[in-house]
């Protein structure tokens, strides 16, 4: 497929751009942070997102969604990333809807998907257990006891964990940490007995939580997909999530680059515009090239998902790895080129810098994805 947006996708992008720029500018995140919002997201904004159809963007129309698919999702995330919009899109519209679509029974889909599309249900994926993403290393246990499953263990970096109504928990019904086999997924009510959610305040002022499961009992019918065989579907949806974070990161680096470029054209030192200095021009030109390459890898990853190509994992790892590196370099350059003012909280550079590091860790950092790219390539 051609690496260009269709007319329909271009319209979606323009609509998303206008919405996030006008309704969810960076000041929205600042307000949530400075008012120490208990939710960490703006419910009125979420309602607007639902009305625009973005919450159900993955969900087929017959289940209340808009069915725009991975490219549509990526386009929305890119625009959300430009303004650092703090919304449950990632946890709910992408991972939640994605996992239920991929692994859910017909009954689960019928019950949950319309609720996601209508904004009634927020979900969160409880996957990570250590400071580095590695799905195979899940150790948390799920023991079968008659028709009940008993979950015990701890999860960390659960994005939107403290606002979710339902947690999607990845736990082990067999095997040991490091095995790809033996993983299962469960839908767990966030208010279930034995579930303790502790919000963690992250550097990017966005939502995350640690979740403790103390012998939490769920009916076996709340398993999402077959027991012990979650890995394939989980990985497929994680790849969707990774591509979408890469798209969100792309929006972030575009914003940093545009803002920095504007600053180079306005700031004067030594009596001249600093953008006349070749030392800065060359760095700006190099950033431009990097942003262009990032565009290409993100669009290719989303296209691969859209077309269900067989190289999805490689295309996605290429994008997530590249954006991790690029966002580090460009957010650092954004601060440096702004000089002293770039170090102040008053300027947005710091917000993008902090967000970029959290995004880089979400679902695997550059090292993780580089190693995965090599492994998939047979070297």
């Amino acid at each position, binding site marked *: 497929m051609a690496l260009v947006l269709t007319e329909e996708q271009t319209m979606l992008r323009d609509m998303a751009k206008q919405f996030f720029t006008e309704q969810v500018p960076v000041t929205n995140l600042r307000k949530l942070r400075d008012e120490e919002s208990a939710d960490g997201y703006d419910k009125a904004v979420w309602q607007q997102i639902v009305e625009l159809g973005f919450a159900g963007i993955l969900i087929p129309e017959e289940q209340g969604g808009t069915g725009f698919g991975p490219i549509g999702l990526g386009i929305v995330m890119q625009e959300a990333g430009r303004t650092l919009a703090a919304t449950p899109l990632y946890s709910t519209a992408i991972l939640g809807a994605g996992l239920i679509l991929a692994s859910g029974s017909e009954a689960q889909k019928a019950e949950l998907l319309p609720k996601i599309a209508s904004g009634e249900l927020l979900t969160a994926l409880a996957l990570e257990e250590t400071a580095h993403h590695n799905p195979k290393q899940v150790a948390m246990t799920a023991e079968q006891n008659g028709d009940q499953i008993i979950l015990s263990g701890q999860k960390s970096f659960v994005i939107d964990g403290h606002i979710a109504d339902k947690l999607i928990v990845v736990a082990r019904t067999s095997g040991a940490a490091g095995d790809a086999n033996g993983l299962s997924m469960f839908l767990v009510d966030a208010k279930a007995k034995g579930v303790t959610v502790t919000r963690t305040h992250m550097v990017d002022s966005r939502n995350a939580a640690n979740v403790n499961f103390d012998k939490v009992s769920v009916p076996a019918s709340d398993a999402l997909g077959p027991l012990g065989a979650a890995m394939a579907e989980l990985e497929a949806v994680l790849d969707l999530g990774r591509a979408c974070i890469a798209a969100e990161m792309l929006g972030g680096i575009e914003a940093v680059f545009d803002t920095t470029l504007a600053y180079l054209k306005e700031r004067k030192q030594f009596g001249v515009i600093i953008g006349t200095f070749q030392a800065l021009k060359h760095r*700006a*030109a190099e950033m431009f090239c990097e942003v262009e390459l990032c565009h290409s890898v993100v669009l290719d990853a989303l296209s691969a998902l859209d077309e269900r190509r067989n190289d999805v994992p490689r295309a996605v790892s290429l994008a997530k790895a*590249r954006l991790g590196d690029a966002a580090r370099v460009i957010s650092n350059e954004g601060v440096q080129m702004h000089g002293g003012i770039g170090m102040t909280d008053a300027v947005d550079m710091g917000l993008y810098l902090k967000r970029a590091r959290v995004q880089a860790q979400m679902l695997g950092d550059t090292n993780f994805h*580089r190693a995965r*790219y090599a492994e998939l390539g047979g070297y």
Partner: protein
Amino acid sequence: MENLDTFRAETRAWLEENCPESMRTPMPERETPWGGRNADYPNPDTKLWLDRMASRGWTAPEWPAEYGGGGLSKDQARILQQEMSRINARTPLASFGLWMLGPALLEFASVEQKKKYLGEIVRGEIRWCQGYSEPGAGSDLAGLQTKAEDKGDHYLVNGQKVWTSYADHCDWIFCLVRTDSSVKHDGISFLLIDMETPGVEARPIKLISGASPFCETFLTDVVVPKENLVGELNKGWTIAKRLLEHERTMISAMGMGGGGAASMGGMEAMAKENFGEDGDKIADPAIREAVTNHKMDHQAFALTLKRAADEAKAGQGVGAAASMFKYYGTELNKRRFELLLDVMGTQALGWEGEGFDPRELSITRSWLRSKGNSIEGGTSEVQLNVIAKRVLGLPDA
């Protein structure tokens, strides 16, 4: 669509019948079909293939048929390319006339000039070289001093060009000359000169790779007919810039791994040969990481070239893309060869003779040659300046 299917079927049949068997094998460098008055065809099939393709204008598929080109649409040209790839057909003609001068003539030359020169290029009869740089005008190309004086019925040209590719094998040279010394960019004209004219002398320059693909070209009292001026007098810089875009696009393709022996696919296999395997992995973690990073950069660049082509097709231009590709592609190619040196160790450091196989020796020479990629056609620093100015709108000092 039906027409395209018919075109594909006819093209396939014609190629099957007309492409000699030996032209469907990998091309050794010495069989490169440069064409020209003194062309040397160690394999006679090369000439046969060139003539057959030229007879249909398919050496320049998209040029208008009235000037000897194929007159094909973009879609037809793509089909021709696909059908040639299908049978591994060699390119029938390698030529600076095709890649650089021709597109500029199509845009700027008079009808008479197009009729005369384009046909010769299509048929591979004339081999062209580029007279741009001078000893005192490299990155500051517009500072060139080679002078063309108006002598009534002709120009008298005096000066020196440098880095003229293969000038010692070429028939004609397209030159930037100074026709007004009182101004800089607006005093440059674009002139075509037959290298058989008395006063033209090309001397090869030996490079660090040991090869001599470039020459110094001396122009001493060279008499050039007035009709050899392309475009308006003193408007040559516009042509020069456009032509440089074609050149940059051509050079940036090197980032995609031209140069056969050191092709991308071989990198990880060579790393395994040299450092062993741990399961499927390259055993040395540092080399594995470097190889992986490089392959990922390469893939990201390839996708960007594809995206630019797709956007061009969709009518959305990427501004100054040629400079971006030239910069990134050539820097990538240099990194590739440095990494090959790391992977191959001392086996990449042989100069000639015993102890090294031909592939190893070729990589050594290509590594040295690659250093020029980020200098020729505008240095990397010039490309970054162009991006900063034309794309990003950063002001001049």
